Every structure is written in structure tokens, then in C-alpha cells.
């Protein structure tokens, strides 16, 4: 099972090899990335069944925790890995002739993502997080759009500050406990539940929250998403933000599962939802609208995660997947339907298919039955209602209000799309690969409708795995450290 280490190793290697190979053969260097990704995808799929319900750990170099580097693998992380690989394949710059350096940046990003998913060690998490950040700086800065450079700079500043805080938080934790292994930390949570521990947690959340598009930390989002090319935006919005969320969730679940913390997450989530939707309502162009909407969706995911226990987790996971699918699809679609709303007037006549897909996506996004979005939103709301805390009940109100605003702006756009005036100043783009992907996304969305029950069961299983710290601790830690638990 240790071959799963290749998930991190192969992309990392290929990232360094690509520039070298490129000097000899450009074609081969271009092929390396996809090949690696396809291989990884296959690896993930093949090893799905062999991973048991308890997950397992890979100890790098034979050093055992808490000293060694540990990768923890369960269905959750495997699923995320598969998604990473698939997503990257989708956004892979097939058509454009870009410098090999960019390929290696992509591969670096891949490696960092895998690492982030798999690491069971705070320091490693930080390292991969930084790696991820660096790769994204590069990718954003490489955009031809001059505005993208400014955005990248903004992103760099914010992200670097965030990383510093993350590091600070980790350092505090290390000072408190002397270890960075999450499983090990999880056995001594009582030491963390103090002023210093909570401060550390706050710093970690703020640091990771930058990438997770958490409210007040997400000021970079609109600039970046609306200036970079759309597949990349799809990647960032769809995937990277989720990875950062996963980081927060890991830390939260293992170390700081307290009602105050959860409530804080809820408040942040509510603000994210409201602010995202409201600003998206004012947006005048597609990408900006989608990016703010993405902020709101992330807020919603935070709200889901703020529900204690498995329920919140599986709803959050479902939301993540749904958002990945829908927002990713929308960004991919936006590759075709770019620009301000005025340019999109009468788009329905130019490409009925694109508009149809667009409407399917937004209906699911809004949570209109029978689309998957509805079931997720329904579960979220019903479960929020079940909480005994009025804060959660208020959150329902905000979610519902946000949905109304969301509908307002999305359907304002739909109105533009169906307006029959002669505008169409932008030349209709040729049938691009991204459009096909968007269609596939939509298809997946529709097909998933038939499998709501199995999918939700899987997610519940996954959630129960993730939510149970004992499994994690027992798998990773040697028994003398795990406090005698079996």
C-alpha cells in the first residue's frame, strides 16, 4: 500500500524533470504531466477498495510518529486525491503552447495538493500549503492579462501574511506540546484548550482561511478569479479552496472540537454567505459574479461544518463536492461566456446548449428540486433547524435570504442571456475543450441525481471515518502514544 506515496512523489519529481526534458524534447515534456496524472488517477481508483474502512498510515523512511513524516490515507483523502488528479487533467493547458515551466508549476501544485490531503503532520501541512501557494503565485503571475499581475501581487501579500500566521500558530502549538503530529496532538487536546491553544487555532484558521476564502480574509478572491484564465479559476475556486478548508477541518476535528469554535465557524460562514451573495448581486460581469458566489458557497460549507458531529461533516462534504462540480462547471462555462453582462445579451441564441447547461448549474446551485443542490440544501437546513442553538436557527434565515439574493442576480443574468437584442460584440469562441468538460460536469450532475441515496451513504461512511479521531489516532500512532486505546 505504500505505493500511494507516489501520489506526492511522482508529481514532485515530474515538476523538476519537465524543464530538463523540455530542453531535449518539448513534446515529451508536455506529455509527462498528463501521463503522471492519469497514472495517479488509475492508482487511486485501483486502491479504493483495498483501503479499509479504517484507513491506514504510511510512515516515510520508517520513522514512526511523532518523529517521522506520516501520510494518512482513508476514503476521504483518496476521494480528494482522485478529484485533484481529475480536476488537474481537466484544467490542463492542452491547447495553449505554454512554457514548460508552467507545466512544472502545475505539477508542483499537484504534488502540494496531494501532500496537503495526505499529510498527518502540522508542519508537513504547512510545507505543502506553502508549496501550493508558491505554485499558484506562479500560475497567476504567468497570466498574460496585466491585471492578473496586480491581482497576483495582492494575492501574494495576503497569502504570505496568512502563511506567516499559520506558521505562528503551528509554532505556538509546538511550544505548548512539543509535537506536531496531529494524531499525537489529538491525544493531548486538554493542553491545547487554553488561551494559547485557542490563539494558535485562531491563527491557523486565519492562515488557512485565506485560501479557503473565509470571510474577511478573502479580499483577494474577486481580483484573482476575474482576471486569470477560467480553467485556472475553476481549479482555484473548485479545488484549492476546498483543500484549505480540509486543512481547517482536520485541525478542527482533531484538536479543537468545541462548541464555541464551531459557532465561530458558523458566524464566519454566515458572513461569508451574506457578503458573497450581496456583492455578487452587484457584480456586472460573469467571472466576478462567479467568484463572489464562490465565496458565498464556501461560507455555506463552513456553516455545514459548524454542525457538530457526522451530520455536519457529511453535509459539508456533499456541499464541497457539489460546489466543486457546479462552480467548476460554471467557471469552465465562463471560459465561453466571458465578459460583462452586456456582452452576453442574447447569448441563448448563439449557444442554446451553453445556456441550458448554465441554467442547470444555477438551478442546482440555488437548490431547486430535484437537482442535487436541493437535497444538500434541504439537509443542511433541516439539520441546522435540529440544533438546539438559536444561532443556528438564525443561520437558516441568512442562508435563505442569501438564496433569494442569489436567485436575483443569477436570473438577472439569465434575463440578459435571453434578451433578443442585437448586441453580441464579442466573437463567439470556437467549441473549446472546456465547454465539453462543462457538458460532462452537467451530465455528472444530472446522473448523480439518480444516485443520491448511494452517494449520500458513501459520504456518511466517509464522514463517520473522518469524524472519529480515535480511528485516526489508532492508525497513526504507535500504541504507547495513543493512550492505551485499542
Amino acid at each position, binding site marked *: 500500500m505504500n505505493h500511494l506515496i507516489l501520489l506526492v512523489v511522482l508529481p514532485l519529481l515530474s515538476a523538476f524533470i519537465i524543464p530538463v526534458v523540455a530542453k531535449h524534447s518539448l513534446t515529451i515534456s508536455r506529455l509527462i504531466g498528463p501521463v503522471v496524472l492519469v497514472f495517479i488517477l488509475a492508482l487511486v481508483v485501483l486502491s479504493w477498495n483495498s483501503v479499509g474502512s479504517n484507513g491506514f498510515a504510511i510512515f516515510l523512511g520508517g520513522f514512526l510518529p511523532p518523529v517521522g513524516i506520516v501520510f494518512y490515507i482513508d476514503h476521504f483523502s483518496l476521494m480528494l486525491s482522485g478529484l485533484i488528479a481529475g480536476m488537474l487533467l481537466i484544467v490542463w493547458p492542452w491547447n495553449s503552447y505554454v512554457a514548460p515551466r508552467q507545466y512544472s508549476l502545475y505539477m508542483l501544485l499537484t504534488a502540494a495538493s496531494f501532500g496537503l490531503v495526505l499529510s498527518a503532520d502540522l508542519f508537513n501541512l504547512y510545507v505543502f500549503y506553502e508549496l501550493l501557494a508558491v505554485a499558484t503565485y506562479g500560475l497567476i503571475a504567468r497570466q498574460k492579462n496585466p491585471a492578473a499581475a496586480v491581482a497576483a501581487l*495582492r494575492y501574494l*501579500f*495576503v497569502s504570505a*501574511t*496568512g502563511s506567516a*500566521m499559520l506558521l505562528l500558530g503551528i509554532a505556538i502549538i509546538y511550544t505548548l506540546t512539543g509535537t506536531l503530529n496531529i494524531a499525537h496532538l489529538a491525544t493531548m487536546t486538554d493542553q491545547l484548550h*487554553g*488561551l494559547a491553544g*485557542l*490563539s494558535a487555532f*485562531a*491563527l491557523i484558521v*486565519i492562515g488557512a482561511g*485565506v485560501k479557503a476564502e473565509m470571510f*474577511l*480574509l*478573502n*479580499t*483577494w*478572491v*474577486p481580483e484573482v478569479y476575474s482576471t486569470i484564465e477560467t480553467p485556472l479559476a475553476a481549479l482555484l475556486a473548485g479545488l484549492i479552496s476546498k483543500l484549505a478548508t480540509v486543512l481547517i477541518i482536520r485541525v478542527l476535528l482533531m484538536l479543537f472540537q468545541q462548541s464555541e469554535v464551531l459557532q465561530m465557524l458558523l458566524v464566519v460562514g454566515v458572513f461569508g454567505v*451574506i*457578503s458573497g451573495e*450581496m*456583492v455578487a*448581486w*452587484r457584480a456586472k460581469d460573469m467571472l466576478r459574479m462567479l467568484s*463572489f458566489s464562490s465565496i458565498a458557497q464556501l461560507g455555506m460549507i463552513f456553516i455545514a461544518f459548524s454542525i457538530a458531529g457526522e451530520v455536519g461533516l457529511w453535509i459539508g462534504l456533499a456541499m464541497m463536492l457539489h460546489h466543486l462540480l457546479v462552480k467548476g462547471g460554471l467557471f469552465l462555462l465562463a471560459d465561453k461566456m466571458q465578459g460583462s453582462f452586456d456582452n452576453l445579451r442574447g447569448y441563448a441564441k448563439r449557444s442554446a446548449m451553453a445556456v441550458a447547461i448554465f441554467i442547470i448549474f444555477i*438551478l442546482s446551485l*440555488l437548490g*431547486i*428540486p*430535484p437537482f442535487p443542490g*436541493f*437535497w444538500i*440544501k*434541504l*439537509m443542511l*437546513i*433541516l439539520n*441546522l*433547524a*435540529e440544533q438546539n442553538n438559536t444561532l443556528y436557527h438564525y443561520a*437558516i*434565515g441568512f442562508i*435563505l*435570504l442569501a*438564496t*433569494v439574493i442569489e*436567485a*436575483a442576480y443569477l*436570473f*438577472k443574468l*439569465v*434575463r440578459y442571456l*435571453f*434578451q*433578443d437584442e442585437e448586441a453580441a460584440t464579442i466573437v463567439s469562441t470556437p467549441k473549446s475543450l472546456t465547454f465539453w468538460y462543462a457538458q460532462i460536469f452537467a451530465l455528472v450532475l444530472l446522473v448523480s441525481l439518480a444516485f*443520491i*441515496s448511494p452517494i449520500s451513504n458513501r459520504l456518511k461512511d466517509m464522514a463517520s471515518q473522518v469524524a472519529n479521531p480515535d480511528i485516526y489516532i489508532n492508525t497513526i500512532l504507535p500504541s504507547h502514544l495513543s493512550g492505551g486505546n485499542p
Partner: protein
Amino acid sequence: MNLLDQFFVIVAVALISIAMLRNIKVNSIVSTLWYVLMVVMLARMSSVAYNADTITSAFSIELLGFRMYWKFTALSWFFSIITVVSALASSLFMSGDWGKQYRQQGGNYGLLQLALILNVVSMLILLASGDLLSLFIGWEFVSWASFLMMVLMPSKTAKKAAVKYVIYAIVGAMALLAALAMVYASSGSLDFTQITDAFIQMTDNMKFGFVLLFFIGFAIKMGLLPFHLWQAVAYAETPGPGAAFLGAISSRMGLFTILVVIVQFIGLGNLEEMNIALPYLNMKSLLAWIAALTTIIPTYIALQQHDAKRLLAWHGVGQGGYMLLGIMMYDSIGSAGGLMHVLNHASYQAALFLTVVAVVYRTGTSDLNKLGGLVTQMPLTFLVMLIGIIGLAGLPPMNGFVSKWMVYRSLLVNGEPLLFVAAVLGTLGTILSVYKLIHNTFLGQLRVEHQQVREVPWSMMVPMLGLSVIVFITGFMPGLILPWIASIQETIGLPVVTYHLGGIEYAKGGLDMIWVSGILFYGFGVGALIFYFLGGKAKRIHQYDNYAGGHFLSSEVKYHYSNNFYPGLMHLIGNWYRGSFKWMENVIVSALSFVSKLFENMYRSRQPVMLLVLVAVVALFSIYKNYSGAGS
């Protein structure tokens, strides 16, 4: 497979076949046949309507721990038959020459038929829903199906209205979802029966919230005050027969759900116990007042309209008030009137919309200031409109009178003078406005450009006549409908009305429409005898041979009175049209946009890093504060 399952299979097959067929002729014939078949199926299920049975579908879905199932009660059956018959009329109407013209003008005929059947299907799903979740899903289907119908019109206003509708519909859906959450939170299940349990357990404040949330959800669909703004424009801006269908029944889905949720499961008795401010105002009377205001305000907005479709659509909003008002009286006769008004309104509203569409078909306009004198050119259409407006105004012998009579009677019995006046005010406004409609369209001077207009073809005439026959027959013999009403009342737990073929039996003044109509027709007969047998014959003259103070009339002289038809009234009440609800709508939008501007500025902040640091500092400080506070 029971009858309901068969019915649903037929509906599904109908949907698929109509979606597949592209040929206009085949499509029309097939769709008409399907609707006829649906009517037949409903007739086979009539035991539901007469004996207050329930048929539960064998088909159900288990999902995420919820079980959704579908069933037919007397209430569902009643609304279904209205839906299917209005759809039949609309489909038949559009299937012939109207469809051809629609296609010539660039419309997509197949899509229109598809939208119609989609509406029917979604309504049937809603009507058959057996629990709250299936109700919600059906509810959403209905919303989106009617949205599809609305966007089919190419005009900009239509799109705007449709989008406005979407927003309102989402607001309603969200309110509903919140109410669902309340039910779920207290019982962990979404069965209808849980509503009652959940309601009983709630605190007083929660009860208000609960009822209001449900009510808002349903009221939006029904266009009750203060959510009436979306409906008229949206319905008016729908392609011809589609408007007839939507205007006839679509918004009544709101009433259906009110009946199911609020009347049947929450219970009007419970509402009555919820005092709001004074002993006079409880939740039930609040709803009754909302209903009464809904009869007045939209009716008087209709009076201002000069577009025939909008005028009718606004009346559609206003008539909804009578239905709710009747039901809120919580007695046998009032609720029977309210329920019966659903059918009555559907029949005459569809007929009226179809006549307007017929006029548009021939003249190309529904602007009341650009029409006139069409009675000689389109006499049958005029007849249908006449029957329709008599029904809408609620004059004997048409069916509108029967239901309104019951509502009035109930208001009298219950001693609600102000509500009574409000209802009458609505009726009077309706009379004024429908006279304007028929006068400006069919009476008065015929314009030169309409000299060659002819009667519409039979494919359009037949459904119109059919509907007007329904309007008359159900007015003449309300006893045909009243058994259904009685079963519904039995099903949803209202007092049951005593009826006979001619109408209602009631202590101290019932209603016997056969006698009333008989007397009326006797009067007309005597009048006709006097008119035709006394006095010489009259000479038919040209409309230019007209008294104009000695002025010579010719085709150049416009001698017609249509614009601003009630100047005296408008002089007085014109100032009262302040657009307050529009203003409120704008206030909400501006408030939201102010807040959103704040957020936007936040996102545009020049110093993201500083913000980040600030957040961190604040977070840390607050943690510190908390802990030191807790420590001390």
C-alpha cells in the same frame, strides 16, 4: 396499479409524447387527446370527489430518510379537474389557427405546448403530494414550469416580469423551506400529520412565525397582499392561451396548499386562538383581512389598466381574495363559496383571457385605447366575454354570483361588516373595470383599421364557448359542483354545506339559482316581448349617424370614449395610487444594495494585508478577553 397510478402513467406518457412531437398538427391533435383522456381518467376517479375517498399511489420514493408518496383526495381531485380542463381549453385554443399565427410570428409552438403540459404535470404532482417534502418539490416544479411559460414571450417586459416572478417564487420557496425546517426540528419527519403535532408543541411566538412562514410561501404564489406585485404583469406577458391557463389556475395552487397545510393540518380553530393585538384581531381574522385587502387593492389597480390582459390578470389577483376570505370564515357556506370560487374563477377567467387573445389574434393589440366596436365583427367572442364578465362581476345568473353570494352570506352570518363592505367594494370595482373592458373592446365606435376584422375560427371558438357553457351551467345549477365541495369540506375538516341542485339550503335565506335564473329569464322574456311586440320596427343605422351636437361624423372623426374611462373616480382616488408596495419593494432593494455596497467596499479594500492582520489581532484579542474574563 390503481387508478391514480394509471392516471400518472398517462400524464407521463403525455408529457413525453408532446415533448417529442414537432409537427404542429400532430402535436395539437395528440395533446388534445391526452387532455381528454386525463379528463376521462379523472372522471373515473370521481368516487374521490363524491364520496371523499382517498386514493394513494403505489409509487413512492425513499430518499435521505424521507418517504415521499402521492395520493388523491377530494381536494386534489377538485383542483386537478380544473387544471386539466383549463389546459384542455388552452391547448385546444392554441392548436388551430392561433398556433399557426404564433409560429409565423416566430414563436415556438412545440415549446408552448410542452410548457403547458409541464405546468399541468407539475401541478398534478403538487396536488397529489402526500407529505410536506413532495409538496415542496411539487411546489417548486409548479414555479419553474410557470416560469418557463412566462419566458416564452419575446418582449423585454415579459422577461423582466418573469425574473421578478422568480425572485418572488424563491422568496416563497425559502419561507416554505424554513417552515419545513420548523416542522422537522420538532418532529424529525415531514409528514403532514407532523404539522399539527409540531404546531401544538410550539410557543406562541413560534406559532406566529410558523403560520406566517407557511402563509408567506403560499401567499406569494397566490399573489395575496403584500406579494401581489409580480403576478399580473407576469401572467399578462405570457403567450395567449398560456396566459389563460396560468390566469385560470396556476396561482390557485397557493390556495390548495393553504387549504392543505393551514386549514387542514394547522386548523383554523387553532389560528383563531392566536390573538395578535386585540381580542378582535387574531391570526384568522388577520388572514381574512389580508384576503379582503387583496380583493380591493388589485381590483382597483385593474381599474387603472388599459391593457386588456393586464386588467384581467389584476382581477385574477383580486379574485383570489374572495376565495381566501370565504375559507377564512370557517363555516360551511363561506368556505364552500371560497372553494367554489376557484372553479368559477378558473372557468370565466380562462374564457375571458381567451377572448382577449382572440381579439389580439384578429387585431394585433390588446390595448384598450386602440380597440372598439368589435361586436359586429366578432359577435360570438363578444358573447363569451359578456358571459365571462357577468361571471367575473358576480352577477346572476352566472357562476361567479353563486360563489360570491355564499361568501357574502357567510360574512353576513358571521357579522363582519367591514369585511363585507370590503368584499362589496371589490365587486363594485370589478363591475366598473369589466364594463370598461367590454366597452373599450367590443362596444363604441369601430375603428377604420378594424373594418375588415372577422370572427375567429372555430378551433378557437369552441373552447371559448365550452368554457362559457361551464360558466353558465354551474351558475344555473350549482348543485352539480356542490357535492365535490362538500367532500372537500369533509376531507379537510370544515363544516359541510347542505345543498340541492339549485344551490344552498340555509336557515333564513338560502339560494336557489334555478329559481333566480328562472325569474331573471322570465323578466328578460317579458322585456323582450314588450320590446319586440310593442312599438314599430327600428331601423339599423350606421355608426356615423349619431348625435354629435349637429356635427358631421365621418371616418376621420374619432368619436369614441375610451382613454381614462373613469375620470371622476380617478380624480378622487387617483391620488391614492401611490405605488406603496412598489415603494416598499424598492426600499428593500435599496437597503440590500446599501449593505452590499459596504461589503463590496470591504472586498475592494486597498490594504488586504492590514485587514488580515487586523482580523488576527481582533481574533486574538477577543480570545484573550474571553479567557481573562472567564478566569477572573
